[in-house]
């Protein structure tokens, strides 16, 4: 299977075709050109015409360059040696460390049998009240952070990575600005979390095809660690870049675009990655947090839209805060009944009051009369935003709950809070004055 083909028929975008026999769909090949070697994989077969996407890009590839098929699909080495290391999207080291070639596992493997899944039951604590208290992150959840360029979504991811009680963090960077890559590396290093972190990083200047491989390679490794009993948190940033790379390849392959140029299988492609989030019975788990920037802050754009249909909720990050409206953790019901008995009531009560605050604010802006109740709401809203929503707040859930009661007590009479009397009797703080 080591026959070398020396005639490249066509080169379009990052896709080349050669005439070859005995090749299998998905197989890996090495393309040797004047600029060095690059891996490529088979994405289409038509009689003896084989289409390959070249990982490092087709720029500079000559029609006379060599293509050697390896007869195996894309794989990645799996061992504890991965910990603390940094790789690119093709699995090659970018930290000057040794290349890992042992114990190779396939990437993009089959999906988990739904009958073997279990109902998620463990909370992941992040120290961010807007998550822990209002939209709890749950082990094995898949959750995107919907945001726009310029928002601190990478900072939020890094913070969660440092604080989350997990065994292992895998960071999959796609189209990451070099600065952001350095930020992740340095922040995790400083916090001492780096030796339980594995990086698969594709920066904005790297070849597009490598971007496509990042989620698969990250999740394949995560899955293996989970099977070995580890709790793994996978951070993917930014999935919109991943979708854009898919679009690029699809257009090159002359596929009929469906919506704003994205290929028809955008949903399936995103889903097959996100669905890797799982809690294995008797073993570990994979939790996925993914930043998804919304082009033009438009949640109906195909990427966030399809993502929302796949994931178990979403966090909206706007103006440096996690928005209470729209943000949703679909799995919070599974865990927030066993935290503290005031958790659910406080969560609902505070959000309803915050919604009333927004209405009062609108009323004020329209110039309508403010009632005494409206004034109370305005005070509440401001306190809520300062003390709860601000991202610099970093407290455990229990403290956040206590803080919630304090804010309520500072603004309202107990009966105005809309919370069950029995809870008020136990948790309402004594006069603070």
């Amino acid at each position: 299977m080591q026959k070398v083909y020396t005639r490249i028929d066509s080169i379009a975008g990052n896709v080349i075709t050669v005439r070859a026999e005995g090749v299998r769909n998905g197989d890996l090949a090495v393309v040797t050109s004047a600029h060095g070697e690059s891996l490529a994989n088979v994405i289409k077969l038509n009689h003896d015409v084989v289409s390959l996407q070249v990982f490092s890009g087709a720029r500079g590839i000559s029609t006379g360059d060599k293509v050697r098929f390896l007869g195996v699909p894309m794989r990645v080495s799996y061992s504890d040696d991965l910990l603390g290391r940094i790789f690119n999207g093709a699995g090659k080291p970018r930290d000057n460390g040794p290349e890992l070639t042992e114990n190779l596992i396939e990437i993009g493997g089959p999906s988990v049998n739904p009958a073997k899944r279990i109902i998620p039951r463990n909370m992941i604590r992040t120290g961010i009240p807007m998550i822990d208290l209002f939209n709890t992150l749950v082990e094995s959840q898949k959750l995107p952070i919907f945001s726009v360029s310029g928002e601190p979504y990478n900072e939020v991811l890094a913070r969660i990575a440092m604080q989350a009680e997990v065994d292992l963090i895998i960071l999959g960077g796609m189209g990451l600005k070099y600065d952001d890559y350095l930020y992740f590396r340095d922040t995790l290093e400083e916090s001492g979390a780096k030796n339980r972190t594995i990086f698969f990083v594709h920066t904005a200047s790297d070849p597009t095809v490598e971007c496509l491989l990042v989620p698969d390679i990250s999740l394949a490794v995560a899955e293996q660690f989970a099977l070995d009993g580890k709790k793994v948190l996978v951070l993917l940033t930014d999935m919109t870049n991943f979708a854009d790379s898919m679009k690029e390849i699809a257009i090159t392959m002359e596929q009929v675009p469906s919506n704003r140029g994205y290929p028809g299988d955008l949903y399936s492609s995103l889903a097959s990655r996100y669905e890797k989030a799982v809690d294995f019975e008797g073993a570990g788990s994979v939790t996925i947090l993914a930043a998804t920037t919304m082009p033009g802050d438009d949640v109906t754009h195909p990427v966030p839209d399809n993502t929302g249909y796949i994931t178990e909720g979403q966090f909206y990050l706007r103006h440096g805060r996690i928005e209470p409206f729209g943000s949703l953790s679909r799995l919070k019901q599974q865990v927030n009944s066993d935290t503290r008995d005031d958790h659910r009531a406080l969560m609902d009560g505070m959000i309803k009051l915050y919604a009333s605050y927004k209405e009062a604010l609108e009323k004020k802006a329209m110039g309508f009369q403010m009632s005494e109740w409206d004034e109370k709401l305005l005070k509440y809203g401001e306190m809520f935003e300062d003390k709860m929503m601000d991202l610099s707040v970093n407290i455990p859930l229990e403290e956040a709950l206590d803080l919630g009661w304090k804010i309520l007590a500072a603004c309202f009479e107990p009966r105005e809070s809309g919370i069950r009397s029995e809870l008020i009797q136990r948790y309402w703080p004594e006069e603070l004055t």
Partner: protein
Amino acid sequence: MAERYGLVTGVDGNMVSVEFEGDIFQNEVGFILVGDQRLKSEVIRITGKSASLQVFEMTGGIGVGDKVEFSGEMLSVELGPGLLTQIYDGLQNPLPQLAAQCGFFLQRGVYLKPIPDKEWRFTPVAKKGDKVIAGSTLGTVPEGIFSHKIMVPFDLPKGNWVVESIKKEGSYNVRDEIATISDGKGGKRSLSMVFSWPIKRPITAYVERLQPREPLIIQSRPIDTFFPVAKGGTYCIPGPFGAGKTVLQHMTSRNAAVDIVIIAACGERAGEVVETLKEFPELLDPRTGRTLMERTIIVCNTSSMPVAAREASVYTGVTIAEYYRQMGLDVLLLADSTSRWAQAMREMSGRLEEIPGEEAFPAYLESVIASFYERAGLVVLQDGSQGSVTIGGTVSPAGGNFEEPVTQATLKVVGAFHGLSRERSDARKYPAIDPLESWSKYPSPINYDKVEWARDLLFRANEVSQMMKVVGEEGTSLDDYLLYLKGELLDDVYLQQNSYDEIDSACPLDRQVLVFDLLFKVLGSKFKLGSKREARSFINDLRQMFIDWNGTARDDKNFEKYEKEINHLIDEKFIEYERQVAKIVEG
């Protein structure tokens, strides 16, 4: 027949091109031999000696020159006793058995027997010499709470078929011969309790189809009262993500007054199926006293499972539904979500390089959706009994915008439309069914005039509410303000229902009638109210009581107390009915 086989000539995503020898037919199932694996696929286009096959598995590792075997059959499901409580993938592969064999992951190319090899207690109904046609009952076996009819296969050609032999009462393996029939012209068939049927062909072994009229109660106030579903009817639930489609489907699967529920989880989250899977065996069905699982079949092809099998999953579901309908049962098929199935079609259409229609969906999208929903229906069977298949499908429109091809194609063919709105779900008003946009062509089990009048009130209240945004409360007349409050009241205490509350989550019909009648009195009356403040406080008090009432069990001692209190509160301020309402009340 000459040897029929093919050789792979190309692979593109989940489509494989094949050069074949001999005759093959459209939609024939073929197996691609890759190493020691046999990958199931379906012929979807034939041109000359070349065919395109959609593969129901991942296509990695398939190479040019791989051999393809043709099965001589269309994609079919196995029908027989033992289907209930099963969890299948889109191709009727039993997932728990697969897990037992293959572990955590779905190994491709492994196809297990859909119906377990099991003995059943058979009681013959037909006798030797009886004339039979397709769908005639040969005997029965007890399957859980049902008497499962063992029928003559639906593909039996017309002719003078008679029973030649039939087994006596006793236990037989599901695949043992239990009867033989012959047509007197040399045609003879040996029958067991199972047979297969192609999923894309509707089962038509019935006498006639009837107009669906009888309401199918699903214990949801907004649906049963305002936008009802009929037994044998169809409905759709389009909505943006997070609007509560799946929760609504889940509640329906628990509470619907039907014999059998089939859940076709098509291209959606695996986690949601797991909830059903783990919960249903624990939950009791109050109507039968047995677990919900005993009346449920799950067909799940979640989003990360191979795309082509997604399309198959809804057909697998509906075929099993039709099979149980043939026994005179009421079956409900819940498909979540039909958009994913349409997308799967779009993907294949793209690979076939067909000329794309709107949003790249194929031109035949509408007719395919229509023929799927047309498989619902209320039918009269050969023995005079009636059976029904009701289909409820969710739609996941891109961007939550209903003006897209799948929603539009679906709206044309369904009998009821429950549109979920982002606005309502953001305001936590669940179920987020938009009362102004939704509709139903089926008769409501509650007084038609009252329901129509209440719905009209919602429209009028909405107008006032829009106006109030401009002129403020100050600029609204007391009458209009009260109208607005009444609209809010109807929404808060009737259209909204807490699916996490044990009592409120399921509201039986008699209770709906009771609550609605009382509420109608509030909506349709003039009251002694001097100011807006007084009006708001009056409605607020009523709201609180209705909500408490809704959350109180029927046999709770407080139930009647609340009812009395509400009546008392109304009577205190009551002046008279509005003119139109008086007419309705007097009949």
